[in-house]
C-alpha cells in the first residue's frame, strides 16, 4: 500500500504538509527547497493541471535520484508552453526531439548513460496524444525491450495545445473540436479509445501505476516506488485541463479528485501485470457531479438531460469500481487508524 494510515487528525495526510508533521511525513512539494523542475514564467494556461503534475512527479524523481536525472519530452503542451525560444522553464536536464519518438530517445539516453558508466536515471514524458497515439509504437517497443526508463503520461484527455482535438484517451461523450456536439450521438463515441495502463500491464513491465494531481502523497509515493525499480516502468497521471475540459481554472484539483472519487479514473498500482494495490474511494460521488462542472459535457445537461448517456458513463465508473475493488468496506468513511 502506498497510502499511509492517518495519524494526524487535523488534516490527515491529505494536505501538502503541516507544521506539526515530521519532515519525512510531508510531501516533497511542502519543502521550500524542492527542485521546482518546471519554473515560473511558463506559458501554460491558468490552472494548468499538466504543469502541476509535471512538477509533482519530477520534483519527487529529483529527490529520489538525488538529482541524477535526465528527462526526455515528447512534443505537446508541456513542451510548447515550457520552452518557447529563447526561454526555458526547465531547471533539470531536459531534452526534446519529436512528437512520436520520446520513448525511443529516452531508451537511447539510458543506453548512453549505461555505456558511459554514469548512474543517471531517465524519465520519458508526454501528454496523452504523444503516449497513446503518436508515440505508442515507440513506447510499446520500449516496454517490450524492458529499457531502463520510467515513462510518464500526463493525461488531459485530448490534443489541447493544437486546439482540443480528440485523442485515444478522450472519454466517451466528451466534446472536442473533432467530436462536436452534432448528430444523434453528440461528443466522442463510446467503445473506442485505449486504456494505456492496462496495455502497459499486458507488456508485463515491472511497474505500472495511475495517479492524479488531487492526491499528492499517493503520486509522490508512486514516483518513489518507480524510481526504486529498474527496467521499463509506466506512470499515468490524470491532469485536468481547464481549456479543453471547459472547467474553471480553480477546479483543476477538485476535478481530478472527483474523477477518482466517482470511479471514472481508477487509481491503482500493478507489478508485472498484477494489480497490487488500489487507492480506495473515500467519499464516492455519482458521475454527474464530475461531469456537470465541465463544459465538454454541457450537452448532457441541456434542457433534456441525456440520462441514457449519463447512465452509460456511470456504468463505466461502476465497472471500474468492481474491477479494481475501489470501494472497500473497511476504509469507506473511516480515516482513523484502528
Amino acid at each position, binding site marked *: 500500500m502506498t497510502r499511509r494510515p492517518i495519524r494526524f487528525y*487535523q488534516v490527515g495526510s491529505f494536505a501538502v*504538509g503541516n507544521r506539526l508533521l515530521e519532515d519525512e511525513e510531508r510531501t516533497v*512539494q511542502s519543502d521550500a527547497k524542492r527542485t521546482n523542475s518546471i*519554473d515560473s514564467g511558463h506559458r501554460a494556461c491558468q490552472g494548468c493541471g499538466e504543469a502541476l503534475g509535471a512538477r509533482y512527479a519530477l520534483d519527487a524523481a529529483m529527490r529520489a535520484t538525488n538529482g541524477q536525472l535526465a528527462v526526455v519530452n515528447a512534443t505537446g503542451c508541456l513542451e510548447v508552453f515550457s520552452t518557447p525560444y529563447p*526561454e526555458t522553464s526547465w531547471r533539470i536536464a531536459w531534452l526534446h526531439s519529436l512528437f512520436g519518438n520520446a520513448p525511443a530517445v529516452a531508451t537511447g539516453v539510458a543506453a548512453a548513460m549505461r555505456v558511459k558508466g554514469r548512474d543517471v536515471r531517465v524519465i520519458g514524458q508526454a501528454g496523452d496524444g504523444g503516449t497513446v497515439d503518436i508515440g505508442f509504437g515507440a513506447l510499446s517497443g520500449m516496454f517490450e525491450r524492458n529499457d531502463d526508463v520510467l515513462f510518464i503520461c500526463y493525461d488531459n484527455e485530448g490534443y489541447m495545445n493544437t486546439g482540443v482535438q480528440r485523442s485515444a484517451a478522450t472519454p466517451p461523450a466528451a466534446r472536442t473540436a473533432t467530436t462536436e456536439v452534432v448528430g444523434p450521438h453528440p461528443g466522442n463515441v463510446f467503445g473506442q479509445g485505449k486504456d494505456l495502463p492496462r496495455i502497459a500491464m499486458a507488456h508485463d513491465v515491472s511497474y505500472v501505476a495511475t495517479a492524479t494531481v488531487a492526491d499528492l502523497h499517493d503520486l509522490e509515493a508512486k514516483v518513489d516506488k518507480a524510481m526504486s525499480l529498474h527496467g521499463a516502468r509506466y506512470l499515468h497521471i490524470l491532469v485536468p485541463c481547464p481549456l479543453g475540459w471547459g472547467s474553471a*481554472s480553480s*477546479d483543476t484539483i477538485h476535478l481530478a479528485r472527483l474523477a477518482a472519487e466517482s470511479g471514472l479514473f481508477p487509481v491503482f498500482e500493478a507489478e508485472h501485470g498484477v494489480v497490487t494495490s488500489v487507492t480506495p474511494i473515500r467519499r464516492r460521488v455519482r458521475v454527474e457531479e464530475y461531469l456537470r462542472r465541465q463544459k465538454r459535457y454541457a450537452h448532457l445537461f441541456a434542457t433534456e438531460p441525456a440520462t441514457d448517456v449519463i447512465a452509460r458513463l456511470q456504468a463505466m465508473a461502476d465497472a471500474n469500481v468492481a474491477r479494481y475493488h475501489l470501494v472497500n468496506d473497511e476504509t469507506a468513511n473511516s480515516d482513523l487508524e484502528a
Partner: protein
Amino acid sequence: MDTPFAITLPVGTSRANHTGSWRVERPVYVDRLPPCNNACPAGENIQGWLYAAESGDYESAWRTLIEDNPLPAIMGRVCFHPCETTCNRVRVDEAVGINAVERFLGDTAIAHGWSLPGPGADTGTHVLVVGSGPAGLSATYHLRRLGHRVTLVDGAAQLGGMMRYGIPAYRLPRAVLDAEIARIIDLGVEVKLNHRVDDVEAERVEGHFDAVFLAVGAQIGRRVSVPAGDSSRIIDAVNFLHAVADDDPPLLGRRVVVYGGGDTAFDAARTAKRLGATDAVIVYRRNREKMPASAEEFEQALGEGVTMRWLSTVSSFEGDRLMVEKMALNADGFPEPTGEFEELDADALLLALGQDTDLSLLEGHPEVTIDHGVVQVAPSMMTGLAGVFAGGDATPADRTATVAVGHGKRAARGIDDYLNGRKTILPPKHDLAAFENLNTWYYADAPRTRRPELEKVRRQGTFDEVIQGLTEENALFEARRCMSCGNCFECDNCFGVCPDNAVVKLENNRYEFNYDFCKGCAICVAECPCGAIQMVPEKI
C-alpha cells in the same frame, strides 16, 4: 550580442516572462472570523488558543485564552458554549469540544501555578467595582492590566457572586473557583467584603473613585403568589442555593417540587437530590422545546432521577398537598390554563421563576435609564451617569457567566477610554469564515472526545464534580480537530498546488504570493482547507 544564425535572443530562464500580467484577480491571504470566536460572549480568540494547543504548547494556549477571559477553568465548566453550537465542524462530523479543552487548559494552569500577566504601569486612576461575580472579576482583571487601581466590593462574605452562591459545587468545585479568583486578586486589588453599596454616587465621592463599574447581578428571586398553608415550606431557589453554598442548607424533606424551567430550577432540583430528597419534581408551565434550561443540564438531571411535569403550573400548596393545574399551548405557543387539576405530595416547594436586579443604589439619578428592571448602557457599557458603567445580569443581555465576562472586558476598555478622554470605538469585525469557505476534504473524519460523566450512582449523594476533565492525550486530539476556520494553519497546500510556483514559503512557515508570476487561477483558494485566501479584483 553573439548569437547563432537566425537567432536574435540568447537562451534564458522563463522567469523573464512575467505571467502575472495575465491576471484579472489576485489571491490575498486573509484572516476570517471563525464562527466560534464570533459566537463567544467573552470574545475569546478560540481558534487562536486551539492553534497553540495543537502543538502541545498549553501554556501559550492558556496565555492566548486569558487575553480575553481570566477564568478558563470556571468557564470550561459552566459556559453553555455557543462556540460549539456554531462550530463549522458540526457539518463534517461533530463540533470540536472547545469547552472541554478550555477546561483542560484552565486546570493545567492551576496545576502548574501559571500566573496572570502583571498589572500595567500605574495610571494613577482608581476604579470602584461593585460585585465580584464574573463581570466584576473580569473587569477587575482587565482594569489592572490597563494600569488602573481597583477596589472590589461585594455584599457577601466571599468573592465569586453567583458562581459561588448560585452554581452548585458539583458543577463548579470551590477549589477551582478560589484558585482563579485568587489569581486576579494577586494582581493587587483592594477587596472589601460584606460591604453593601446603597448609593453609588455617595460611594464614589467618599472613595474618590474616578469611575465605577456596577456588576451587581440579579440576586432577587422572582416571587409568585401561591396560596399556601402556614406549615407549607416555600423557599426561593436563589436563597436555597445560597444557603447550601454557605454550608447551611435548609431542611426540605423527602419530596421536593421545583417550580420553573431555567438552569436555576435544575440546579435546585439536583441539589435537593444530593441533600437526600427521594423525589425531585420540576413543574414547568411550557414544554421541552420552550424550556430555557440547557440541554446538558436537562439530560444530566434526568440521569440523576429528577422528574419533569411539563405544561403545569402550581396553583396552591396546603400542608403536604401541592395542587398543579395542567396547561395547554395555544396557537401562539403560550400556555393557557385548562381547568384540570392534579395533586402532588410535597414537603417543600422551591421557586425558580427568574431573578431580578436590585438597582436601589442608582436611585435619584434620572439620567440613568432603567427599563424592564435592568440598566441601559452604551456600547462602552457606560450608563446615563458619566463615569458609571454597568454589566452582567444587571444589564440587558443573556444572563450567563460568559456574557458577564465579556461585559467586564468591554467595560474595562470603556472605562479606560473614558479616563483617557477617548471616544469608545468598537473594532470592526472580520468577515465570517463560513462553512462554504472551507475545503473539508482535507480534514480527516474524527468524532469528538467526550468528557466522562461521573457514574450516576456515585454522584447522586455527593457534591463531587459530575463532568470529569480530558486527559492530556484527549485534549490534544480534540484541539487538533479544530479546522482553523478562516485562519492559516500552515498546511503548505497553497505552496504545493500552485501550477506557477507563485507562492513563496517564508522562514516563519507563512507564505506570500509572487505576483510577478501568479496568473490568478485561484487553485490555492479552492484548495485552502480553512478558507484563508480570497480573490480580489485587480485594478485594471
